[in-house]
C-alpha cells in the first residue's frame, strides 16, 4: 500500500498562539523578538507585520522605522517546541503517527487514515478548518512522500493533494528551496539560473553530486520516494487510570470493595511492570444521579502493594454514599514515582526508619487522621528553644546539624510559657521562691542564668534569662526572666519541667 503523508505548516505559529491568548492583539501588527549580540532581533512576525515587509531576522529598530507603533513582545526559547508538541498530541485524533518538524511543521503519516473522514479532500479540509477556528493560519499538503508534501505546503499553489506517483510533475515548477536544501546550495542554484526544480531534476546524478554535494541527491530521492525518510512520532503520556463500568448499579459496601480490589490489581500490575509506585490515588464512584463520590489516599513512599493500598482505602469506604447506585468506578494514580526496590536483609534484628512496614503504618495514620498528626523532629540552628527544632514529614530527611546537649534542656516544654510569681534577690541571682498554679515552691538548688537573645532578624522582643531550678521536693523546673532586671517591666515565666 502506498504511504501517504500530510505536512502542516504553521506560518505564524508563535504569533497565532499569542493572539489566541491575548485577543487584544488581533488585527495589530506585532512581532516577537529576542536579544542577540546586544540588539533585539525579530524572531516571529504576524501577518499584518509581514504585510508591511517586516520579516524574521530584522532588527527591531529597523522594523520600528517601517511601523512606529509596532508592538514588540519578548520571545521565550523553546516556545515553538512546546507548542508543536502539544499540537502533535492533539493531532493524534487524526493519525496515530504524528511527528514534530522544527521550527514550524508537523508531519503526519496518514496511511490508511483519510478514508475514515471520507477521503483526503474532506480530511484535509477538516484539519484546516479546525485549525482556523483555533486561530492558526496554516498551509497543508498531502503526498506520497514527506519531501513533496513539505514542498507543496510551503511553495505550492494548487489544492494541496498530490495524487500517488505525481511527485515529479508537482515539483517541476517549484523553486529549489522547496526541496529543503540549505541556503548556500539554494543560492548557488539560483546563481546558475536553475530557478525551478524542473531545470535540474533530470540532470545526471553524478554531475549534481559533484557540484552541489550528496545532500541534494538525498533530498531529491526523498521527495520522489526513492529513499525512505524516517520520522519520530510523538507518544502522549498515558495517565495511570483504570475504569470499571457496571451493568447494574452497585449499592453495597461489598460491591464497592470488589470493584476497588479489581481496579487496584490492574493498576498495580501496570505500575509493577513499569517499576513505578503511586503516591496519591483517587477512587471515584459515578452515581446514577450524576454525583461523583470520591476518596483519596496518599502514601509516604511510592508503592504498588495492593493489600496495603486496599487497607488505606478500606478505612474510607464507609464515607461513600451509593444512594441509588454506582454505575462506574475509576481509580486514578495522580502521583507516580519510581520505586526503589527494598533490600531484603538476612539478619533483620532491628531496623531503622527506612522500612516498609513503618511507612505503611504511618500511611494508615495519615489517612485516618489527616495530615499534620505525624511529626518527626530535626535540629535547627537556633538557640531560641521554640525554634531549635523543625518538624519534617519525611522519614528519610537526615540531620543537617547536630543535637546540642551542652546546655540543659527540659524533657517537657510548655508550648507557651506560663507566668509565675517569683521572689528573687537582685539582680542576677536565681529566684528563691516561686508560685505556680497556686502552689509555692521553695528553691533549694539552681543553675544559671543562661541568656538567650531574641533573634532580631526573625522577631523583635526581649531576651530571656533561663534558670534551671530544683525545689525542696526534688522537682525541677525551667524558669526564665524576660527582659532586664533594671527595667520595671520584666516578668518571670515557667517554660518547662526536667525529669
Amino acid at each position, binding site marked *: 500500500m502506498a504511504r501517504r503523508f500530510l505536512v502542516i505548516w504553521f506560518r505564524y505559529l508563535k504569533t497565532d498562539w499569542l493572539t489566541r491568548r491575548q485577543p487584544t492583539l488581533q488585527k495589530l501588527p506585532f512581532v516577537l523578538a529576542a536579544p542577540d549580540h546586544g540588539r533585539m532581533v525579530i524572531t516571529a512576525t504576524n501577518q499584518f507585520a509581514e504585510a508591511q515587509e517586516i520579516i524574521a531576522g530584522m532588527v527591531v529598530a529597523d522594523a520600528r522605522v517601517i511601523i512606529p507603533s509596532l508592538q514588540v513582545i519578548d520571545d521565550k526559547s523553546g516556545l515553538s517546541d512546546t507548542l508543536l508538541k502539544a499540537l502533535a498530541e492533539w493531532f493524534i485524533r487524526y493519525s496515530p503517527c504524528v511527528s514534530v518538524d522544527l521550527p514550524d511543521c508537523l508531519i503526519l503519516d496518514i496511511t490508511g487514515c483519510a478514508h475514515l473522514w471520507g477521503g483526503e479532500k474532506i480530511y484535509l479540509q477538516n484539519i484546516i478548518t479546525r485549525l482556523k477556528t483555533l486561530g492558526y493560519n496554516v498551509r497543508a499538503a498531502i503526498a506520497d512522500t514527506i519531501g513533496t508534501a513539505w514542498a507543496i505546503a510551503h511553495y505550492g499553489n494548487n489544492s494541496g493533494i498530490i495524487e500517488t506517483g505525481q511527485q515529479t510533475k508537482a515539483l517541476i515548477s517549484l523553486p529549489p528551496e522547496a526541496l529543503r536544501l540549505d541556503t548556500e546550495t539554494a543560492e548557488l542554484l539560483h546563481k546558475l539560473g536553475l530557478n525551478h526544480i524542473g531545470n535540474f531534476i533530470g540532470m545526471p546524478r553524478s554531475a549534481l553530486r559533484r557540484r552541489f554535494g550528496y545532500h541534494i541527491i538525498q533530498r531529491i530521492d526523498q521527495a520522489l520516494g526513492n529513499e525512505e525518510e524516517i520520522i519520530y512520532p510523538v507518544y502522549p503520556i498515558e495517565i495511570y487510570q483504570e475504569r470499571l463500568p457496571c451493568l447494574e448499579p452497585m449499592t453495597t459496601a461489598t460491591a464497592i470493595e470488589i470493584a476497588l480490589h479489581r481496579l487496584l490489581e490492574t493498576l498495580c500490575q501496570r505500575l509493577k511492570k513499569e517499576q513505578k509506585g503511586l503516591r496519591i490515588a483517587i477512587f471515584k464512584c459515578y452515581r446514577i444521579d450524576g454525583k461523583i463520590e470520591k476518596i483519596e489516599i496518599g502514601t509516604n513512599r511510592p508503592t504498588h502493594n495492593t493489600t496495603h493500598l486496599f487497607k488505606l482505602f478500606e478505612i474510607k469506604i464507609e464515607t461513600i454514599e451509593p444512594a441509588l447506585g454506582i454505575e462506574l468506578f475509576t481509580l486514578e494514580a495522580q502521583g507516580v514515582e519510581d520505586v526503589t526496590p527494598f533490600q531484603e536483609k538476612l539478619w533483620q*534484628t*532491628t*531496623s*531503622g*526508619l527506612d*522500612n516498609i*512496614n*513503618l511507612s505503611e*503504618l*504511618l500511611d*494508615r*495514620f495519615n489517612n*485516618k*487522621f489527616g495530615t499534620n*498528626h*505525624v*511529626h*518527626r*523532629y*530535626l*535540629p535547627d540552628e537556633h538557640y531560641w*528553644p521554640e525554634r*531549635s*527544632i523543625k518538624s519534617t514529614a519525611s*522519614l528519610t530527611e537526615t*540531620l543537617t546539624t547536630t*543535637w*546540642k*546537649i551542652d546546655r*540543659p*534542656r*527540659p*524533657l*517537657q*516544654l*510548655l*508550648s507557651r510559657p506560663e507566668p509565675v510569681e517569683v521572689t528573687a534577690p537582685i539582680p542576677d541571682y536565681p529566684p528563691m521562691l516561686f508560685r505556680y498554679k497556686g502552689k509555692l515552691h521553695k528553691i*533549694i*538548688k*539552681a*543553675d544559671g542564668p543562661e541568656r538567650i537573645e531574641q533573634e532580631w532578624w526573625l522577631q523583635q522582643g526581649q531576651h530571656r534569662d533561663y534558670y*534551671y*531550678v*530544683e525545689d*525542696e*521536693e*526534688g*522537682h*525541677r523546673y525551667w524558669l526564665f526572666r524576660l527582659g532586664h532586671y533594671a527595667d520595671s517591666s520584666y516578668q518571670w515565666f515557667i517554660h*518547662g*519541667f*526536667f*525529669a
Partner: protein
Amino acid sequence: MITNKADIIARLRQDLLALQGFKPVSSTDADIGLGQINHSFPNASFPIGAMHEFISADKEDSTATGGFIAALLGKLMRNGGASLWIGSSRTVFPPALKFFDIDPEKIIFIDLKREKDVMWAMDEALKCDNLVAVVGELQELSFTASRRFQLAVEQSRVTGFILRCNSRNPNITACVSRWKVTSLPCLLNDDIPGVSFPRWNVELLKIRNGKPGSWQIEWIDNRFHHLSSANSIALELQKETG
C-alpha cells in the same frame, strides 16, 4: 532426689512463663543496665515485648516518669531502630531526649486530639514488628484495651509503655507491670552550687511473676546507678572537681 525436684520445678516455671507470654530473651538484649531491679523480673531480665504501665499524679511526676521511660527507651534503642510516641497533649521536647542517649530523629511523634484515636493508633503501632517500642500517653486504660495491647505485643515483640497521668480510676489492667516514678531531691551539699543528675524513686508496684520493690536510682552519664553506688560516684566527682 531433692535437687531433681528443684530442677523440675525450675523447668516447669520456665514453661509457665513461656505460656504466659514471657519469651526467653537472648543474652545480648537482656541486660539494659537496671542492676538489682533485674532480680524482680521473671527470667531476671527486663520484659521486652510486654506492656508496662506507669502512673503519675501530677505534671512533675509525669516528667520524672517520662525521663525514666526515655532512659529505658534509650537502652532498648541502642542497636538502632525507631520508636513511636503517641499522645493527645504531648509536651515532650525532642532535643532533651538526647540527654537520655536517644537520637531524637528516630522517634516519631503522633499527636492526636482524642483518647479514642490514641487507643486506635497504639493498637496499630503495637502490631508493627519493625518498631522497638511504643510510648502512649493515656489517662484511662480499660482492662479490655490493655489485654488487647498485651496480646498484640506478645506477637510483635514490641515493648509498650503507657504513661497514665492523673488517672481517676487506677483499675486492674493486663499489663505486665505497673510502675510509679517520682523525683528525689538532689544529693549535693548546700555549699555546692548547681543542680545534679536526675534522681528518681522507682517503685515497681506490680509485676507479673516477679517481686515488686522500690529503688532509688540516679541517671549519670547514660547509665542507671543505684543510690548507694551513686552516692560514691557523686562523692568521687566532687573530689575530682575539688
